[in-house]
C-alpha cells in the first residue's frame, strides 16, 4: 500500500492574536493509519488538530498562513460543511447532546438530509462499530446523559461515524476515562483504522506507542520530529524528543 497523505500541512503558521501558536509546521497524516501527536501541555497539539476541521475559525483573532491539504485539495477550496462532514472530531470530554441515544445518532443524518429509510440501518451499523449495539439496542430512547463516560465517548464516536467521514480527529479522547475504558477505546481505534484515517492527540505516551503508526512530537508550536512510531520511541533523532519520551521534561 502506498503511503499517501490524507491530511498535509506545508509551512503552516497560526497566530492567536500576537501569540505564535504553530511555527512552520510540515506535517502529514497518512491514510488508513493512526497518527499521534504528543508533546507537553500548551505546545499546540490541539491547535494543529483543530486546523484540519477549521474549528479554529470559531475563535476571534486567529490568523493562519501556509497551506493545508485534505486529500491533496487546498482546504480553502472545500466547502466547510463538506469538510467537517468528511473530517469528524472527538473531543476531550465526551459531549453527547442532552437527547436520547437515538436522537444523538440521528443528528448528523438529519442535518445532512440523509433519507429516513436508511436511518435504522445506519444507526445499527454505527452502534455496532463502536461496540455499543448489544448494550444500547434496547435503551436507544433513554437519555445519553445517563451513560457512563466511556459509553458517552463511544456514542460520540458512533455519532460522527453516522455521516461517514473518512478522517477522524481525536483530541485526548481518553483523558476523562479510567485505564480499562482507555484500553478499550484504544482497541476501538485500531479496529477503526481499517476504514478510517485517524489523528489522535494524546498526553499519554504509552497510548501513542500502543496505538499509533506514526508520531509527531511538538514543542512550543514547533513540530520537532515526525516519523514512524517505533522509531520515535526507540531511536529519536532529536534529543528534545528523547528528553520528552524518557520523561526528562514535559
Amino acid at each position, binding site marked *: 500500500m502506498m503511503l499517501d497523505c490524507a491530511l498535509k500541512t506545508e509551512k503552516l503558521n497560526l497566530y492567536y492574536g500576537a501569540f505564535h501558536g504553530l511555527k512552520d509546521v510540515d506535517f502529514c497524516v497518512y491514510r488508513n493509519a493512526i497518527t499521534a501527536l504528543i508533546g507537553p501541555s500548551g505546545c499546540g497539539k490541539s491547535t494543529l488538530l483543530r486546523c484540519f476541521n477549521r474549528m479554529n475559525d470559531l475563535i476571534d483573532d486567529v490568523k493562519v498562513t501556509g497551506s493545508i491539504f485534505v486529500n491533496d485539495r487546498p482546504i480553502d477550496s472545500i466547502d*466547510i460543511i463538506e469538510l*467537517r462532514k468528511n473530517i469528524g472530531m472527538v473531543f476531550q470530554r465526551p459531549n*453527547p447532546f442532552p437527547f436520547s441515544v437515538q436522537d444523538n445518532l440521528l*443528528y448528523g443524518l438529519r*442535518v445532512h438530509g440523509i433519507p429516513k429509510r436508511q436511518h435504522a440501518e445506519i444507526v445499527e451499523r454505527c452502534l455496532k462499530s463502536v461496540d455499543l449495539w448489544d448494550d444500547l439496542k434496547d435503551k436507544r430512547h433513554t437519555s445519553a*446523559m445517563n451513560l457512563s463516560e466511556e459509553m458517552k465517548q463511544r456514542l460520540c464516536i458512533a455519532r460522527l461515524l453516522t455521516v461517514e467521514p473518512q478522517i477522524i480527529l481525536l483530541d485526548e479522547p481518553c483523558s476523562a476515562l479510567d485505564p480499562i475504558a482507555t484500553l478499550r477505546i484504544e482497541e476501538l481505534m485500531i479496529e477503526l483504522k481499517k476504514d478510517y484515517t485517524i489523528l489522535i492527540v494524546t498526553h499519554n505516551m504509552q497510548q501513542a506507542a500502543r496505538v499509533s503508526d506514526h508520531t509527531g512530537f511538538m514543542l512550543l508550536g514547533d513540530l520537532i520530529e515526525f516519523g514512524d512510531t517505533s522509531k520515535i520511541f526507540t531511536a529519536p533523532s532529536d534529543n528534545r524528543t528523547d528528553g520528552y519520551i524518557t520523561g526528562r521534561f514535559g
Partner: protein
Amino acid sequence: MSPSKAVLKERIIKQILTACAFSSLLFLFLIFAFILVEGLPLFYKVGVKNIVFGMKWAPTKGLFGIFPMIVSSFLVTFGALFIGAPLGLGCAIYLAEYAGRQQKLFLKPALELLAGIPSVVYGFLGVIYIVPFIRQFIGGSGFSLLATSIVLGIMILPTIISISYDALTSVPRSYREGALAMGSTQWQSTSRVVIPAAKSGILASCILGMGRAVGETMAVIMVAGNALKIPTDMLDPLRTLTSNIALELSYASGDHRMGLFSTGVVLLSIIMVLNYLANFVIRRTVIK
C-alpha cells in the same frame, strides 16, 4: 467562657442579615393577608361562581362578575406573548449565538434601558402612535385588544430576552462545538441542539413574561379602552383585572371596594400559578 468580641459581632451580623432575608417573606405574607382578609368575605357573601364566572360588573347593584376581565387579562397576555415571544427569542438567540462583541456591547445596555422605562411611557407611546394608527388603518376606535397586545408585547421583551439569553448562554460550549464539528451550519447547531437544550429556560422566560403582562396596569389602562365586556375581535376594547382595580379603587367603598379586592385575589392566584409553573419548568430540568 464568654465568646470573644469578634465572634459576637459575627453573630449579630448574621442575625441582621437573616432578618433582612426573611423580611421579604414577611412582606409577602402581609400582602397576601391583607388581600385575602379584604377580598375573601365577598366570595362568601356573593358566591365564588357569581364572581369568577359572573358576566356583569355593576358593584353598586350588587353584581360582581369579573369573568370578562379574567378572559380579557388572558387575551392580552396571550396577545403579548404572540408578539413578544418570537421577537424576544429572536433577539436572545441573536445575542447568544450570532452577535459579536461589538453588537453585544450596545445591545445589552439598550435592553436594560428598555426594562427600565416606566410603564406610563409605554402607555403614552401607545396612545400617541399605536392607537391612532390602528384607528386610521385597521379600524375601530383604536383602543383595543390589538393595541394592548402590542404595547404589552414590547413591555415583556426584556423579561423574555434576559431569561432566555441566560438559558442559551448556559448551554455548554461543547454542545455547539460537537454540532459544528459534524458539519452543521450555525443555524442547525442553534435550532437543533442549543435551543432544545435551553428549552426549559426559554419556556420559563415566556411564563414569566406572561406574569409580567397579566400584572401590567398603567399602560393597559391607557390603551385598552376599558370596556366591560368580553372582546370578540382584535379591535374591541377590553378591561383587565388590574385595570379594574386601578380605575375604581379611588372612589369605591363598602362592597364595591371589597369587590376590587376580590379581583385582586383572582389576580394574585393567576400570578401564583404562573410563577409556580415557571419554577416547576426550571426545577424539573435542573434535577434531570
